[in-house]
């Protein structure tokens, strides 16, 4: 079920360069045109078009009935979306910062995630939660967390982590069409970055990893914001004659184990990089899956790089120390190759 070919879309021929934010907006607009039951609900999603302007203009096309501005009530908004999703609509709930998911956990975990199962399959909750992760924006401890590991640990929820404008569009469209609740995390730092996005109808199925760059010496499994870091590391090490393969799971649930394990078996050396806190985070599961299924191919233990286990500090001189960088990933790769 996984496509292992590294899709390096080139601009031109049915492909445009879009910013991450434009790609998200395009996905929402296309799905809202296609299906009248799709609507967006959240704080300042209307005229303001979201503080990051990700949703700018949607209200002009779809009006306040389908781009619903709300009070500052994350739990209430999410609960209302769950009820709407159970009764024929397809809400996309915008949670401005992933940190605010802490306020909606009961609605997402005890309600949305379990209703299909608890009802013996009778009720469905086709809900999308659209939110952010990522630090280094100088936003301090309550606006910088990457909490996707929590949701990946909750049966009934799917979790998408788009790393490029192309993936942002394709995964969001798939999430909206999915009949289960899906939490989509976007790196708030990448909204203005540009990348190629195919013209026209285009969906990326949930559960299909992508080899973002092929290589031979070390596999770097990277998620979301860390994909760009991994690709930068690959460029950096190429000069040293070290070849990295960069694999992006794109969704933690469902997880495309096959693609991860195949790459690990091929290179024998693996680094997992994710911006969530290192301990008890996503890197632990990905590293364990690889260790379990590629154990006898591994020349060394899987290395894990995540955010430092600290609340995110405000001061730039401190904040920049807390997240993996091309330098720290490169150092790990050299160590794995005994070139440190």
């Amino acid at each position, binding site marked *: 079920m996984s496509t292992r070919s590294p899709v390096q879309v080139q601009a031109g021929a049915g492909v445009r360069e879009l910013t991450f934010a434009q790609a998200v907006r395009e996905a929402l607009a296309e799905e809202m045109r296609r299906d009248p039951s799709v*609507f967006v609900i959240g704080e300042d999603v209307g005229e303001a078009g979201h503080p990051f302007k990700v949703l700018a203009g949607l209200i002009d096309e779809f009006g306040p*009935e389908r781009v619903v501005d*709300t*009070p500052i*009530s994350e*739990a*209430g*908004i*999410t*609960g*209302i*979306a*769950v*009820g*709407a*999703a*159970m*009764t*024929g*609509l397809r*809400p996309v709930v915008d949670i401005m910062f992933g940190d605010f998911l802490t306020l909606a956990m*009961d*609605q997402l975990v*005890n*309600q949305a995630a379990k*209703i*299909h*199962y*608890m*009802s*013996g*399959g*009778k*009720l*469905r*909750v*086709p809900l999308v939660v659209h939110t952010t992760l990522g630090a280094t924006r100088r936003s301090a401890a309550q606006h910088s967390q990457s909490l996707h590991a929590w949701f990946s640990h909750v*049966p*009934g929820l*799917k979790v998408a982590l788009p790393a490029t404008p192309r993936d942002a569009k394709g995964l969001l469209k798939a999430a909206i069409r*999915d*009949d*289960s609740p899906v939490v989509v995390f976007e790196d708030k730092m990448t909204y203005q970055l540009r990348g190629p996005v195919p013209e026209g109808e285009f969906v990326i199925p949930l559960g299909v990893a992508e080899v973002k760059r092929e290589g031979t010496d070390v596999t770097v499994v990277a998620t979301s914001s860390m994909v760009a870091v991994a690709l930068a590391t690959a460029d950096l090490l190429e000069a040293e004659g070290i070849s990295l393969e960069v694999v992006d799971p794109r969704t933690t649930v469902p997880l495309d184990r096959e693609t991860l394990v195949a790459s690990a078996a091929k290179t024998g050396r693996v680094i997992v990089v994710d911006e969530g806190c290192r301990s008890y985070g996503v890197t632990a599961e990905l590293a364990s899956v690889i260790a379990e299924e590629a154990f006898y191919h591994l020349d060394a233990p899987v290395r894990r790089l995540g955010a430092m286990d600290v609340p995110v500090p405000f001061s730039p001189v401190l904040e920049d120390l807390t997240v993996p960088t091309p330098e720290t990933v490169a150092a790990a790769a050299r160590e794995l190759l005994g070139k440190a």
Partner: protein
Amino acid sequence: MTVGGRLSLEAEAADLSREEALRMFEGMVRIRLFEQRVNQLYQSAKMPGLAHLYIGQEAVAVGVCEALRPDDYITSTHRGHGHCLAKGARVDRMFAELLGKADGYCRGKGGSMHIADPDGGNLGANAIVGGSAGIATGAALSAKRRGTGQVAVCFFGEGALGQGVLYEVMNMASLWSLPVIYVCENNLYNEYTHYRETTAGEVLDRPLAFGIPAVSVDGQDVRAVLVAARAAVARARRGEGPSFLECLTYRYLGHHVGDVDRSYYRSREEEEEWKTHRDPLATLAGWAVAQGLATQEDFDRVREAVEAEVEAGLRSALEAPYPDPSEVDQHVYA
């Protein structure tokens, strides 16, 4: 109709036809007899887990659901058997669910606290206090958006007044004039604590503060509940927005089937007072007989018919098969 004022009612209590009186009595006696069996199942260790019995509160579920269309929505609570039955659930499939059988409404996956019956408009009981306030409000938003004229009823105990999400969604329901009815079943206790120790100010002032018309009714008088429910439903269908009903009621038995020694939090006298003087079944039957609408024999016949239905339902549920082990990881994802 006042916005943010008392919900105006047509009358203090409904005049009923013979059919209505017998139908609502049947609804209440079905809940009563069903749950007496549930209690016995627990005491004879035939039922897994616990159940929170609704006995004593029957008039609330039956009076409210009498005012609803089959396609209207309800959400329910941990004390939800009464709501499910009043909205049309069958006793055999209810028993089956409580016994964890495959014939249950949720194929045994939900149990007592999670019975859902979408075909009957029941979006599910909820084991999180206040947990369905958002769901009911969202169903109302959906009904309004789809223009179906459906309303959504959110049943909850007064303990849910402690949950902040209730105020978040009441605010939005009021802002957006959603067709939702918040039915607060005030049975005086949050588990083992009197609601006066957990609830500052007056209950009705809370919805009123959000511009939601509210009224308090005798939850032991199904006719009073029906009148209030009809007014709230009519308001919702007219597109005028949410309402809030406080139904003053009482649970005759423990917080759950295992709560047998209750003396430390409420008196025998209090329990007796409600059971003997404020029983919803006796009250309705007594009124109807006095009105000459029906005879005690009519009501006895209804009770006997329901008794037979309950016995048959229980028997079939006891004999029904458990779900196949392969079902354990089905229905995680749609």
